[in-house]
């Protein structure tokens, strides 16, 4: 088996995981290109963590297969793990070890020699602004500091692939921005990054994106393409129609989502045969609402709403 047969870092086909009666991941196909930041977007319980755990061999798929860095995860998980960095959702380095000790331990586990390890630790401490915290116990650090340490530890062996499970869920906005700068630096250096998130702004920064809902892959592509090719009209009503009318609008056939943004209403309207938008217009006129509906650019949230309303999704839910 050759490690670089394809230029895809991860290829998954029909990846499925059931926990008893619950299907956490349902026939997911993935092609994650090398050297890119690939996002898993989805709400809690959509199967992001379960997918990541299957990709690093921590969970066995109930059906389907995954090839990671050219190796079948089910058959040779330790081959995959050698070239993989994994950051769990919860901070899982050792609270009672210092920053330096945690890095030293993880480096040794990945088989780094004494001198190489010392050099790498110095490098990482500088890169992740942890130099002053070298002798600080991990348990006493802030959320942002722990997150930097976790990323430093996950990259200590310069892995080809990073799997990051909601890495920014416990940190402040500034730390999130810094964190993403670091991810881009890693991707530019050739590392493939697979990151799960439920933040739309983070998802938008990914090169490619998979949207998961209830365990199924409901949309996949570059964020810009996904927004461009959205199968719905996004309309803006430049007025606050009040609670009663808003509820009626949301109940109209073809209306997939209604969100109030300040004094504006954002309406996602199915495109279907082209009739939905006209009908909505008539409904508004009949209701005495004369403000015109303006078509606007879709964002990822709209893509998400449309994707999770797709008929195949509703039928199975």
């Amino acid at each position, binding site marked *: 088996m050759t490690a670089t047969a394809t230029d895809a870092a991860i290829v998954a086909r029909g990846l499925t995981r059931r926990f008893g009666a619950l299907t956490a991941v349902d026939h997911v196909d993935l092609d994650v290109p090398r050297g890119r930041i690939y996002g898993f977007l989805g709400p809690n319980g959509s199967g992001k963590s379960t997918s990541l*755990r299957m990709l*690093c*061999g*921590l*969970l*066995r798929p109930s059906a389907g297969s995954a090839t990671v860095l050219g190796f079948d995860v089910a058959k040779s*998980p*330790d081959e995959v*793990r*050698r070239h*993989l960095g*994994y950051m*769990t959702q*919860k*901070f*899982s*380095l*050792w*609270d*009672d*070890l210092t920053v330096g*000790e945690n890095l*030293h*331990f*993880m480096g*040794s*586990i*990945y*088989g780094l020699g004494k001198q190489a390890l010392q050099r790498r630790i110095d490098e990482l401490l500088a890169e992740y602004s942890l130099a002053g915290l070298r002798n600080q116990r991990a348990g006493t650090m802030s959320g942002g500091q722990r997150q930097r340490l976790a990323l430093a530890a996950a990259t200590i062996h310069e892995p080809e692939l990073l799997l990051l499970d909601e890495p920014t869920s416990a940190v402040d906005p500034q730390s999130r921005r810094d964190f993403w700068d670091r991810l881009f630096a890693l991707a530019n250096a050739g590392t493939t990054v697979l990151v799960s998130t439920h933040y739309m702004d983070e998802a938008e920064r990914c090169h490619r994106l998979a949207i998961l809902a209830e365990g199924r892959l409901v949309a996949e592509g570059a964020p810009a393409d996904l927004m461009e090719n959205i199968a719905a009209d996004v309309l803006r009503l430049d007025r606050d129609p009040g609670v009663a009318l808003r509820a009626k609008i949301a109940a109209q056939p073809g209306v997939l989502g209604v969100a109030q943004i300040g004094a504006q209403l954002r309406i996602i309207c199915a495109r279907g045969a082209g009739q939905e938008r006209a009908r909505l217009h008539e409904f508004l006129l009949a209701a005495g609402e004369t403000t015109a509906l303006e078509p606007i650019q879709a964002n990822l949230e709209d893509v998400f709403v449309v994707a999770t309303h797709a008929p195949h999704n509703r039928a199975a839910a």
Partner: protein
Amino acid sequence: MNAWRRLYAIAWKEATQLRRDRLSFGMIVGLPLVQMLLFGYAINFDVRGLKAVVVDEANTTASRDYIAALTATQVVGRPRALASGAAADAALRAGAASVAILIPGDFDRRIQGGARSAAQIIVDGAEPSIQSVVQGLVAVPLNARHGMVQNNARLVEVRTYYNPERRTAVQIVPALIGVILSVTMVLFTSGAIVRERERGNLELLIATPVGRTELLVGKFLPYVAIGLVQTTLILLVGRWLFNVPIIGSLLQLYVAALLFVGASLALGLLVSTFAQTQFQAFQLAFMTMLPSILLSGFMFPYDGMPKLAQWIAQLIPLTHFNILVRGIVLRGADLSELTPQLLKLLAFMLAMFGIALLRFRKRLD
């Protein structure tokens, strides 16, 4: 090369964490010390000065002599005189006395006749080991002064080997090495894997190339050292406080201790693969302790146990270690005379470790 590096890293991490965990670290020294003092001073099979009451309805020279002879054994203290058998029953019931001596009014005649028992000794059977001790009182001649009743007690001489003064400490302290080690060793490792699972460290650890054997052996090694430190501590305290001599080879004693520590740690690791939480691990660890203490020959002689208990005892490492340690420390036996026990300990350790290894998977499901 990488495997050794990883093994060392795991062992180093475990040792560092243990050093920083003040309570656990204190337990390494504190637990053996407290148990030594408790067991060493409190456990006393050499029963003396039991509280006794006496109802002497005869009140003759013979009956008074008999009471004096009983008191002279020191098994019972000076008995408190009561008026009636009913009062003696009440004293026993209330726990005010463990032994009641009833002497009927026709005591002298009964001694002469020999057909009916001349005196009655009532024993509180609710308390362990008192009954067997009081059996010794039966041998006290009923009429020593006049030599009228033949007593064969003097014809049999009892000598106690290896512990001529019959001090309980000499029996207890060597066996305590095993008891204390089996408690601390199983407790330490039973939490080793569960703790990391509970804190979430395990998910990260098993997503690395670290091997199962490296992980388990790495967690095992620091505790081997701790086990040997505890052994040393118990031996020193035994020597200083309880004056227990070590007749056999010290090196051989450590070889035996090393195997026993290994067996106990492996059992703890196995427990750790079953438990989902540290609390469960402690309960499971505790479950292994009681049979160890009760069936290993620490409390009751192995030969006196029913067959079923003996079979169970064969599966308990402490049984074999007790034979080893009593042999080496008290009888000066050589390990070459004790190879079956050594081999059984080794087999137990390998079996437990093997099963633990098979049960431990680098997966979350």
